[in-house]
């Protein structure tokens, strides 16, 4: 039991920080908000060369074969520097292909991902934004040796820049809930696909994607027909945990900016930082980030151990949703009017963290998931002892 980073972990984090400090300025983030592609391919390539894109992918595909935790530490820094790269969507998809895809699918994608030559994404949400199987209505109809996809996906990250997209469908007509869910690896350039960019708070690149009689071969299926829900849930869990690392990374930087600002700004003849009310807000900010970070680390660590981690992921996201938002809002408040001005950089963090609190599950949804684990299985619950163990007893 040691919740502190090892020297090696610390070193990785520091090297990521140094690189991004030098290579990714807030101006780059601003520029990419206006950019059509939404990310600078050269920086992406550099990050691939540094081994970050392939960090948690196997060495045989050109990756580093390291843990999700390592990737999480890098993504914390990516969040800290609000780096405009499609790392989150690519990793969420790539890790799923690696975990549950066929050898062929892996060969086709992972080497290119590791080398920075392929951006990926995934599509789950439709009109009903809840992260539950019931929300998936998109149809995959068997047709000869392939499937025909019809439906509309919402909030698809970086679809515009992605070569392939994991698409969650309902392949059994009339099926309910988690039954009948299938997952496909789809070329984004397939005939019948159209997409339109959404205008978002974070000014990132999310799309509504319409699938109209899109034909995919059977070989595009990940997992077994109609039984892909566990694969999808694992994908969402990894994506959520990785998003939490970005949230805590960005929120910590935002808190630090507020603390610095308060030390340098005078009010009533003394530094703003010397007011007890400001001190207490700042103390809370740091404790909130710390809490979110510890919860996130535990979730990542469990995944790395191959242990069930859904509850830990939901704990982290529910907490980060509320507390990281509280951090960035408090930072805005400490900065006063200036933080609201377009030309000042603070809002770049505020808008991103806020947007991230809205994705991959609301606070209510994640708490409901925790409550199910706590209350709907037999056995006494105890903090610090796995809730899954209890379930299996």
């Amino acid at each position, binding site marked *: 039991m040691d919740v502190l980073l090892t020297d090696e972990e610390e070193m990785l984090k520091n090297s990521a920080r140094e690189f991004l400090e030098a290579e990714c300025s807030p101006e780059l983030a601003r520029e990419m908000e206006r950019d059509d592609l939404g990310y600078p391919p050269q920086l992406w390539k550099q990050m691939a060369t540094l081994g970050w894109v392939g960090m948690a992918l196997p060495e045989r595909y050109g990756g580093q074969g390291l843990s999700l935790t390592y990737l999480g530490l890098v993504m914390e820094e990516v969040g800290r520097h609000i780096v405009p790269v499609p790392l989150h969507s690519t990793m969420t998809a790539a890790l799923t292909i690696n975990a549950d895809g066929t050898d062929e699918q892996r060969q086709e994608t992972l080497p290119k991902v590791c080398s920075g030559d392929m951006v990926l994404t995934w599509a789950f949400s439709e009109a009903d934004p809840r992260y539950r199987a019931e929300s998936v209505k998109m149809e995959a109809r068997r047709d000869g040796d392939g499937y025909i996809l019809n439906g509309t996906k919402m909030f698809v990250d970086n679809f515009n820049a992605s070569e392939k997209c994991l698409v969650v469908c309902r392949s059994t007509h009339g099926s309910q809930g988690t039954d009948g869910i299938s997952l496909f690896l789809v070329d984004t350039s397939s005939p019948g696909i159209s997409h339109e960019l*959404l*205008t978002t708070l974070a000014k990132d690149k999310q799309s509504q994607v319409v699938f109209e009689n899109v034909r995919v071969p059977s070989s595009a299926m990940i997992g077994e027909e109609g039984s892909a829900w566990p694969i999808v849930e694992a994908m969402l869990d990894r994506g959520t945990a990785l998003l939490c690392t970005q949230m805590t990374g960005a929120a910590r930087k935002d808190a630090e900016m507020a603390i610095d600002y308060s030390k340098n700004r005078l009010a009533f003849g003394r530094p703003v930082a010397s007011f007890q009310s400001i001190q207490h807000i700042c103390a809370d900010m740091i404790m909130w980030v710390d809490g979110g970070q510890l919860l996130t680390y535990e979730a990542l660590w469990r995944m790395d151990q191959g242990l069930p981690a859904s509850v830990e992921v939901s704990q982290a996201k529910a907490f980060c949703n509320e507390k990281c938002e509280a951090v960035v809002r408090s930072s805005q408040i400490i900065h006063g009017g200036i933080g609201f001005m377009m030309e000042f950089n603070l809002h770049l963090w505020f808008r991103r963290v806020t947007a991230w609190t809205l994705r991959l599950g609301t606070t209510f949804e994640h708490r409901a998931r925790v409550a199910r684990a706590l209350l709907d299985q037999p056995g006494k619950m105890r903090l610090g002892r796995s809730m899954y163990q209890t379930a299996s007893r």
Partner: protein
Amino acid sequence: MDFAFTPEQEQLRQEVRDFIAENVTDSVRAEVEDAMDEGHGEEYMKLRAKIAERGWIGISFPKEYGGQDGSRIDQYIVEEELARVGVNVGLSGSGGPAILAAGTEEQKQYFIPRLIRGEVTFALGFTEPQAGADLAGLQTRAVRDGDDYIINGQKMYTSSAHYATHIYMMARTDPDAPKHKGISIFLFPMDTPGVTVRPLWTIQNDPPAPMGTTYGMGRTNETFFEDVRVPASSMLGEENMGWYVGAMGLNLDRVGASRYLISVRRDEDIVNWVKENEFDGHSPSEDPEVRDRIAEMWIEAQVCRLMTLRSMSIVEHGGNFTYEGSAEKVWAPEHGVRTTEGISQILGPYAQLLNGSIGAVEDGVFAHNLMGSFQSGINHGSVQVMRDQVARRGLGMPRG
């Protein structure tokens, strides 16, 4: 106590509603929306004139200056109804209350009727780059020169400076006095030589917040004063007493329909939205956790409403606030933040969609509120300073 409006007041409210139905046409609304940060267009000014004609602006102001010698509650009713459709004709924040209280007869005669008729609009010049929460730390100087003052300095967040006719600003007239005791207020035309306005764009400018956004300021300004010569008659109140004149004005400015609506309209909006809408067959209003949260927000909004009505009642009795105005100014903005954040977790990913986007809820109003709501806890006195005031003025607790 009496929590009802009188039948006459209910009738007034109905008249205002009827007026709105008839006069706040789509073209007016479109103009207001387009010009939210750009001053007012022709249609708006015509509408405003019609409202003024009915005697609905500045109802509680004296007749001799163009008001109605009427009730503050009546005025509140009119302001509330109009603010709800995005037409802000309230005179809180206008400079009017302070001029009425501290102005010379000449100033009152000149400004009040014109404020009421909409011919004069003040930009407010308080904050400076180095003086935010601590307003009294301002450094803009006004130096007496014969019958004039020469003003030099800079103001931040002079929101309407790009279309206002006049400025209502504070400058230091005695640099040697303790900081609260060397400040004076000046009122003068924006086109006075030496005044320059530079735009400051906010995060709500891209895209501009849609109408119905309760905190949606897309543009504000910096205003620079370079050897601006104004006559001594521009001064409001006594020389070096500007802090106290301004504080009184701000105190009156903190209460009223529009400030309260900034913080609570989104409560109504979300209730009505979830009742009437759904996401592919599922409405968040079916979820008990969401219902619990909405009820919690609604109850808080009622407290905001009642605190506002308390302030109105005090004004109507001719009384002064001890802490009630400050309390309203803590409670409403903090509630507004809790509500926008609560709503964001009710709408989930839809809450990130701005106006113009496919899928945007209420054309992005909730998303813009989420970006802007924290601002109402900063403007016109931060909630921290307001809490200090509740404790010190209201509860007699000593300075640290």
